[in-house]
């Protein structure tokens, strides 16, 4: 067990006046579990810290309990102090007798009894504290980027730098659907000319193993060669797909000639040299109900169609049928007003139906107030949103990353860690994590780069969480209940040995597995059953 030193902080009058520290001292002496009790005016002051460090050394304490304020205030401070005294920071327990006793219980008598229970609990548990080792592992600073669209290329370009290689894996060719556009071509060149980036195009990913700091990818090149790549982090940039309006009632897509998607229309327009259409109808929000969300970029894209048509021939009539105009950000209201100025008509609809009548197409619509109307057009352009790519499911399995209800990758936390995932070291950027315009995708690529560049620094070892879980092999029968409980894929079954193992790189130290395990094989360091049971017992003695 070792000699235990108990430190009582008066916190000026905050604790001293609210709690009878003399009585505490007397009672704890009676319990005869501690080797010494020290009292100080303000332990977190420089004098206080020095006092603790020196008295630990002098009196030869091997376990330390500090009764003061909330661990949220000074746990870190005192762990450092204990370490300075030459002890392992984890043979120490902090007791919160300020926030949850002195300040919360007006009656001094009661507050003192309560503080006594808190302190006894800590003394009881600290007897079962053992040094925890601060583990560090070697890790690779290189990165595997999967997907060669905007997000993938921008991520690769931002990550690649001295001491860091990037492997960009693409099933087709970098640049994706916008390869032809000038700005994209420039980025693809930058990618190809970067000496620190290896591009594997037309390749298939066979398998992806490993974890943060050391992933291994097995892929098959176009020539059919097996290639093995090692990296410390992975950026998923597998993109999204355009929603396919085929079979969507009322639009006549693939049924009526002259009905096309934006991309088809633009392509046709650029190819065709012959005359301009007299009238074009652009329909927004195609498939939004089916998708269940607004993609955020289609309204602007739909207006851009109108603009191009008008630029080509000012007399062509253009009508934009929309439900709600989604024009987020500072640029788009202006863009809308300018578009309206060019003579483009904007019609809000609730229901819409496209039919062919004689030579032309007729767009019939009903508005929210019930009134209805129709427009004749030579061309109907459907502006649809974006949907999750089909490949997501497979990568989700590979990396143990949950998909959301729409089939996009889920961030570890939508706000706190938007490009991170529950699998440490695997990041998601661009269309594969949700609808994203090129600028969003670029920003997300930058974010992933920021996380990678700061998490994995060449020559620096990866420091691991100390309060992780472990599995006692002798007790484990490999039932897998802890595996089901772990949200981070840290607990896995070793099929050969029929036991569960915890990957300390992935473990975040929540202790869920320890509570799930019926045999007590899974244990949570610094929160072991015995330590917690001691707290319970001492509180209730």
């Amino acid at each position, binding site marked *: 067990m070792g000699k235990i030193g108990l430190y009582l902080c008066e916190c000026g009058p905050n604790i001293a006046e609210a709690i009878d520290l003399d009585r505490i001292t007397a009672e704890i002496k009676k319990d005869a579990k501690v080797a010494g009790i020290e009292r100080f005016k303000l332990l977190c002051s420089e004098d206080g810290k020095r006092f603790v460090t020196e008295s630990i050394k002098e009196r030869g304490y091997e376990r330390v309990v500090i009764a003061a304020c909330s661990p949220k205030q000074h746990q870190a401070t005192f762990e450092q102090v204990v370490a300075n005294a030459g002890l392992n920071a984890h043979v120490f327990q902090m007791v919160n007798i300020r926030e949850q006793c002195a300040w919360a219980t007006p009656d001094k008598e009661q507050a003192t009894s309560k503080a006594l229970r808190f302190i006894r609990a800590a003394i*009881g548990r600290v007897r079962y504290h053992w040094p925890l080792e601060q583990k560090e592992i070697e890790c690779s600073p290189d990165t595997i980027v999967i997907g060669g669209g905007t997000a993938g290329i921008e991520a690769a370009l931002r990550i690649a730098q001295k001491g860091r290689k990037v492997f960009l894996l693409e099933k087709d060719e970098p640049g994706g659907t916008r390869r032809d556009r000038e700005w994209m071509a420039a980025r693809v060149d930058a990618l190809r000319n970067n000496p620190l980036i290896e591009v594997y195009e037309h390749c298939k990913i066979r398998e992806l193993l490993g974890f943060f700091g050391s992933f291994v990818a097995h892929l098959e090149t176009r020539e059919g060669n097996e290639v093995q790549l090692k990296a410390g982090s992975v950026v998923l940039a597998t993109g999204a797909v355009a929603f396919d309006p085929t079979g969507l009632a009322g639009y006549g897509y693939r049924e009526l000639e002259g009905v096309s998607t934006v991309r088809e229309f633009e392509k046709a327009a650029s190819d065709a040299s012959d005359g301009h259409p007299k009238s074009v109808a652009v329909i927004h929000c195609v498939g939004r109900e089916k998708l269940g969300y607004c993609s955020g970029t289609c309204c602007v894209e739909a207006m851009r169609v109108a603009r191009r048509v008008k630029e080509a021939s000012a007399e062509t009539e253009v009508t934009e049928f929309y439900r709600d105009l989604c024009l987020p950000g500072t640029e788009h209201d202006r863009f809308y007003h300018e578009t309206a100025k060019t003579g483009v008509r904007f019609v809000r609809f609730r229901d819409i139906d496209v039919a062919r009548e004689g030579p032309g197409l007729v767009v019939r619509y009903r508005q929210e107030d019930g009134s209805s109307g129709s427009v004749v057009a030579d061309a109907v352009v459907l502006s649809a949103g974006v949907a999750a790519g089909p490949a997501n499911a497979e990568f989700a399995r590979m990396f143990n990353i949950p998909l*959301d*209800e729409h089939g996009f990758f889920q961030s570890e936390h939508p706000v706190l860690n938007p490009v991170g995932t529950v699998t440490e070291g695997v990041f998601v950027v661009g269309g594969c994590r949700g609808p994203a315009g090129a600028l969003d995708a670029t920003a997300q690529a930058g974010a992933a780069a920021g996380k990678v560049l700061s998490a994995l620094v060449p020559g620096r070892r990866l420091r691991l969480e100390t309060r992780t879980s472990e599995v*006692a092999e*002798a*007790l*484990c*029968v*490999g*039932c*897998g*209940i802890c595996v*089901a*409980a772990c949200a981070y894929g840290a607990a896995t*079954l070793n*099929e050969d040995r*029929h036991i569960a193992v915890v990957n300390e790189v992935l473990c975040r130290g929540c202790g869920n597995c320890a509570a*799930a395990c*019926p*045999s*007590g*094989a899974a*244990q949570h360091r610094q929160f*072991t*059953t*015995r330590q917690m*049971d*001691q707290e319970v*017992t*001492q509180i*209730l*003695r």
Partner: protein
Amino acid sequence: MKGKRIPVDGSVNDTLRSVLALLLKATDAVMVPSRIPSKESFAYLLIRDPKLLEAATPLAPVMPVQGARALQSMGRGRGGLPGILCVLRPCEARAAIELFKRNQVDLEDVLLLTIDCPGAFPTRDYLGNPEEFDRRFEEILQGKQDDGLRPDCKSCVGFSLQEVASDVHIGLLRGKPGEVAVVHRSDRGERLLADAGVAGDDGISDWEAGVEKEARVRTGARDSAFQEMKGRAAGVDGFEKLFADCVNCHNCMRVCPICYCRQCFFDSGDSVRLRAEDYFARAQHRGGIRFPGDMMQFHVGRMYHMALSCVACGACEDACPMDVPVSRVFAFVGAGVQEQFGYAPGRSREEAMPMTTFKEDELHAFEDAGGISAPGTTETQSGKSKDQDSEGKVE
């Protein structure tokens, strides 16, 4: 439902043996309770040599070893090994499936054959007078009632193919001349029967009706058994009386098919055992404490660990040297929490165990999130959670 009707030739066990002989042709081995030459006890045999089937007693008068445990003792990772047909009572098959969900048995090459269960006698009664009980058991197989069966068997509602995901089932049409009905419950079972030439599509509605009728009787018995338990187990007093004689031998855990842990949490050093000084402090605190300690901790804790999967097989009570009605309490508690989570052990191999999954929107009667109201009562709880099939989390 259709199946193959086979007239009983000789005793029921004779007939079952002949069916097994046919099935053994279509698989590599049969695992079946068999009479130990001493003639006074039974054990599971893994039989590859058809001749040994002579000793097989598919329906034995006692259940000294829970079949699922026998299967578990074979270990896992048998992938690619010869196939086995394992003969089990429905409660044993349910336990086997619960162990399968816990990675403790490997059903890859194992087919589960269940048989309408006539029940079993308490092992200690049987050993007192084997001949007598063998005779009485034969009469039971002819359809006679016998009050000497174990309490759990008398109130067992899962004696046939109710809620058990076995591959093949054999029903008993009692009375003279008796018949057995062989039915498949899975594709693999169907293939086995076909290969063994025991497939058939005779109508068996009379047997099904018989099962239903019997089930109604058993349900009544079970309800009154639970009623009795409710009275006896109620509160701290009830608990103290029920377990007064417990000597902490933990036999109930050792024979329990669901208690699969290598070492029981409540036996392990790092469990909630205390140091002498702490026991002393507690003795001081409450005047005195019982030793060996942790009796209630053990039983309630074990309930927490296995009640959701308790198949009420009665093995624990059979093994209790002090006649504590262990299995009756556990079956009673098990039924309660199984209803609470809408879970039936052994019903399906896919159904996730309630403690390995969750839904985001559930069990609100147990939490207080908004106001500071106390959690609801038992009624509202089971009401709340009835509709939950506990499959994976929503979205």
